[in-house]
């Protein structure tokens, strides 16, 4: 049982620490880089990239 809920009694059901939004290494990197953004600190937010036309297709990589 996780300790996400804290109180003075036991709840009927436990709360499991199974975050469906677990931070990936990519997310962690982009969050940290965002905090220092400026000058040489620039990065590609990978989830925001619009792939689409022939010149930018992932298949062409």
């Amino acid at each position, binding site marked *: 049982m996780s*300790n*996400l*809920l*804290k*109180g*003075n*009694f036991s*709840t*009927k*059901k*436990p*709360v*499991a*620490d*199974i*975050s*469906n*939004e677990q931070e990936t290494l990519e997310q962690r990197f982009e969050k940290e880089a*965002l*905090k220092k953004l400026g000058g040489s600190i620039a990065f590609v937010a990978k989830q925001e990239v619009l792939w689409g036309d022939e010149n930018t297709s992932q298949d062409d990589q």
Partner: protein
Amino acid sequence: MAKILFINPVVREEDDPRHVPYGIALLAAIAMRDGHQVQVYDENAWRKGSEVLEQVFNADHWDVIALGGITTAYGSIKSIVKKARIICPHALIVLGGGVLTSLPREMMGFLPEVDVGVIGEGFITFPDILQKVDAQKADWQNIDGTISRTKNDGLVISSQRALLDELDSLPYPAWDLFPLEEVYFPNSQVLFSEEGMLAQRRLDINASYGCSLVCRYCYHLGIAGDMKYETDHHNELQVSFDQPGNYSRTIRYHSPEYIVGMVKHAHEKYNLDFIGFLDENLMTMDQYSKRTWLKEICRLWIENGLQPACIHDDIEHDENCKGIHWSGTSHATLCNPETLKIMREAGCSHLIYGYESFSPHVMKTIGKGATPKTNMRSFFWTLESGIRPIPNQIIGFPNEDFQAIYENMQAWKKLGIVVKPFFATPYPGSEWFTVYRQWIEEQYEGDLEKYILDLGDATRITAVISHNFNAVELLGLRDLMMNFDYKRIEEYEQYWRKNHNIPDGAPSTIFQAPVNNASQKTGNIRLANGTTGSR
């Protein structure tokens, strides 16, 4: 007894969670003192996402789901109450704090899931609500300090809740119910001073409530005697705050014995090395107490063995220092060298000063009760005492102009101030929100909720209340100021003067000085019809 789930909503998502929510921690302690069953889910600390939140709602049969926070937590609150209503259809959802208090009717409209709102201080109102829950009654309108729904989808505001007189009757906050070891202690560092930077086990406390000053951009949200209940022309009760020429204040503070007793208790229990005083303005209390309050807190701090060893032994501070360093808020006009010296001796490491501006004509309009001269005086007094002054600055005040910009840059250079100023932001509950509301809403297509969702900690620009500069100009000018780029600012000033038909030598402003008559005053502010100034 009622089974209560407190939820602390996410705030300042761009930063790590650093502060145990003091109000929720106090209300949780009060509820437990009264025998209720309490659980806390600190969503701001954990940030685990929607699946965990759903589990939390499903973990038990909750009688009450209680949440609150400042206005900038609104986005998170909105998503939490929507989910809460679906998963826990029978729970009473109670919302309090500044987010509700500043705009009670609007918030109850934006958030139809909320059953009862707590307006102003919740120390008595919230336990009264829990008593009704236990008694299976729902006549919330009979509890002072609430807003609730009528059977025909209307809203009813009950009588105003009186402020708690005996602050020392409050229990200590229920810090145990928050993830101290998991989240808060690892985020103890506060980059305001050397001692703050090395803090490893910090908690915050609130030693007082309110402030005697009437800063136009500040908000107190019903805990400082600033809130008034008025009947409008529809015969409906409305909650209002500071308005031009109409101010009221009640300041309250804990006894030095309560404060130091609480810190000692927390020190022994959690092995703290740093305390942040969250108070609006420590100096206003000290002055009200005839300069006895801070002196006595410091005396007891040392007497109870909380003085940091580095100060006691006159050696450089390091991570192994024993005792508790602390920080707080000060005021340029109300501080004095003697008190500052005593504070340093007891371990004060830094004091936050809202200097806001070093421009005399700007300072005259903001209600701060300070001048550039008192700003500078307090700056040197604080440095001389060994405490770091944190010189907060704001740009974008209604009468901010090029002269003010140059005066600020000159002061920063002279005082060695390195700063990225806040933007003047009219938060709900402040006088400038009331005065400029129409223009603020116009900047968000008439949608107040959009504005509230956009609000942050004023480091980012939101609604502009500057008569002279628009958002783009303020952003650019701030950047140039930080780089002391006089050349480009002067070039832009020439361009700006040309655009506004203001000749060289004339004041670089289209702001008209405020007048005392309220009906005249509306002609001098930026209204939706743009009667003065430019965008």
